[in-house]
């Protein structure tokens, strides 16, 4: 219990920070709830990217820096293809391209680097990320594109009876959250009920033992990178539909790194919870803490959401390196 104290302190501090604006009367409950919901929506998107990370890390021990580039690539593909084709067909073609990419990555990058250290693999995925960014923008173009998911843009007002003025809610946000929940449900089903899922879990548990009972590591890698590609496509469509498809998509995905630190590298629920914490935390910090900081230190503007997630992750690393749901590390010589 004593050992857990710093961690509990951090969690309590976060919770306290969350409700402080309410307690001090700095904001009305309605506005606070709106910010909270906005944060949750951003968090869903972070969680989606983090999900891709976790899937690949679990199955192959690779910290996939290229997940953001995959999101960008697939979003660009969907955006450009859907200019000519119906959306569902564009998504289908993109999914096929992502599977092809997974096969290529496994053949050209992972297989030659098998048994290398995690850091080497991380740097290799950095290279993959660069290639994908360049390739995506060369093939599909590098302007700003939009994906029309066919959901009306104007926000709707809810809970007008409870709060004065009601709460603004974006329909596409709701659709995004719904899509994310459906995706996670599908993944959980895949992992729990299918034979492939069983093999995936076996490889995640102990690659050597899994191989010795006849599971092909290469097949598993292709599968898991394809699934991550699919997750990236969903993320790209959701995110691109909301904010437009452009290069910054690959950068926003960097936010998923602190998310997996928070949640633990090997935990799917961790990725989701971490994503929500980061999303809410950073929106709250930007809206409520930002102006205070600006006033106190005469800053030239806010923008603390650029680093808030990372500093939060850093604090987590200090008090609980394995994350919320991760496995403890044991060092062996």
């Amino acid at each position, binding site marked *: 219990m004593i050992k857990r104290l710093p961690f509990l302190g951090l969690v309590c501090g976060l919770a306290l920070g969350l409700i402080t604006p309410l307690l001090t009367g700095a904001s009305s409950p309605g506005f606070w709830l709106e910010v909270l919901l906005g944060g949750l929506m951003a968090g869903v998107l972070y969680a989606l990217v983090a999900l891709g990370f976790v899937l690949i890390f679990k199955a192959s021990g690779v910290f996939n820096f290229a997940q953001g580039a995959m999101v960008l690539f697939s979003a660009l593909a969907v955006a450009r293809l859907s200019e000519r084709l119906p959306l569902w067909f564009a998504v289908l073609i993109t999914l096929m391209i992502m599977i092809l990419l997974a096969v290529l990555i496994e053949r050209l990058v992972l297989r030659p680097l098998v048994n290398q250290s995690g850091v080497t693999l991380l*740097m290799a995925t950095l290279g993959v990320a660069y290639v994908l960014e360049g390739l995506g923008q060369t093939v599909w173009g590098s302007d700003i594109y939009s994906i029309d998911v066919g959901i009306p843009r104007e926000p709707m007002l809810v809970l007008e009876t409870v709060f004065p003025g009601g709460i603004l809610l974006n329909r596409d946000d709701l659709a995004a959250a719904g899509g994310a929940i459906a995706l996670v449900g599908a993944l959980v089903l895949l992992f729990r009920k299918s034979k492939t899922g069983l093999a995936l879990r076996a490889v995640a548990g102990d690659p050597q033992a899994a191989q010795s009972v006849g599971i092909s590591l290469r097949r598993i890698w292709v599968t898991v990178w394809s699934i991550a590609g699919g997750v990236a496509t969903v993320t790209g469509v959701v995110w691109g539909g909301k904010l437009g498809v452009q290069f910054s998509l690959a950068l926003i995905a960097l936010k998923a790194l602190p998310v997996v630190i928070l949640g633990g590298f090997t935990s799917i629920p961790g990725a989701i919870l971490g994503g929500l914490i980061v999303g809410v935390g950073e929106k709250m910090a930007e809206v409520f803490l930002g102006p205070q900081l600006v006033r106190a230190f005469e800053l030239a503007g*806010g923008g603390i959401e650029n680093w808030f997630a990372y500093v939060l992750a850093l604090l987590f690393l200090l008090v609980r*390196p394995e994350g919320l749901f991760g496995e403890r590390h044991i060092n062996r010589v």
Partner: protein
Amino acid sequence: MLYPKLYPRNRALESRYRPEPWLSPASRRWTSSLGLALFAFLGVPLWAGDYLLLSLLIPVLILTIAALGLNLLVGYSGQLSLGHAAFMAVGAYTAYNLALRAPALNFLIVLLGAGLSAAAVGVVFGTPSLKIKGLYLAVATLAAQFFLDWVFARVRWFSNYSNSGSVSVEAIDLWGWTIDTPSDRYQFALALLALLTIGANNLVRGHLGRAWMAIRDQEVAAEVIGIRPVHAKLTAFAVSSFYCGVAGALWGFVHLGAWEPLAFNLNLSLNLLFMIIIGGMGSILGAYLGAAFIVILPIALNRLPVWFGVPISTATASHLEVMTFGSLIVLFLILQPHGLARLCALGREKLRSWPFAY
């Protein structure tokens, strides 16, 4: 011996203890390295034009310092960092503030201050490395990158209340020597690089360097034989950030002249990492080769199509550049994890035994 001395033999080991701790390990290559240094210092500025100096040689020299620093951390101590451009920014802004607020200060002291403050910040952001490693550390150093970027853009004191953190500086004055012309700047950067190279070379030969390498190779085992991981890791972070701080100050004062925090963004951090991957991890020569490679490649990629008469747009060229970088990283990691430095060594080996196979 058909080809005496043209390709020097591998270093012989010392046969006595006395010369072991000497500054240069070589009783051997003094003449050739001194000749090379003289040529680089006096000969190159005579022959090279302003364009070559300004857009190629000076950036290569300064980035080599930064790559040396990163290599001490990543290549020698095995601690990954994705945020070293932020430490360069610390150096640059410290130097700016020192020069602004204490104009009488000698620039060398300003540089020292830049390095020391970067080292202090590096130690702070390196503390997580005591508990975590590898992938986790990558994220911790990314935190440094984003946080420090923000600090220099938003905290107006650092940029003397200018807009969005952009600052500009005057030419350096060193005991009456105004470092203004391209060849002056080149010589100044080269002198510092030479100094820091000797420093790095000897650090990695000494007990500190050996402690770093032991930590890199087997942390628990190193601890068992009496190396303190706390000490080794934090010194690695400190020395590495010191190098980057000096490089950052030079990047601002000697190369850019005017800059904003964006000059030290994540891209530069990643480029530094690419330099040491391509150049060679854990090799002093590698930092030189990698920096040269990463600076020259984009310029070459922009020019080549024009020479071949295939005009391409700047956007395509930059995408091509990114793709080339990416594939080279993967290729080097797969085919030659020790980078260009190792390729050089292999080439020298081949030349020495030529025309025989071995």
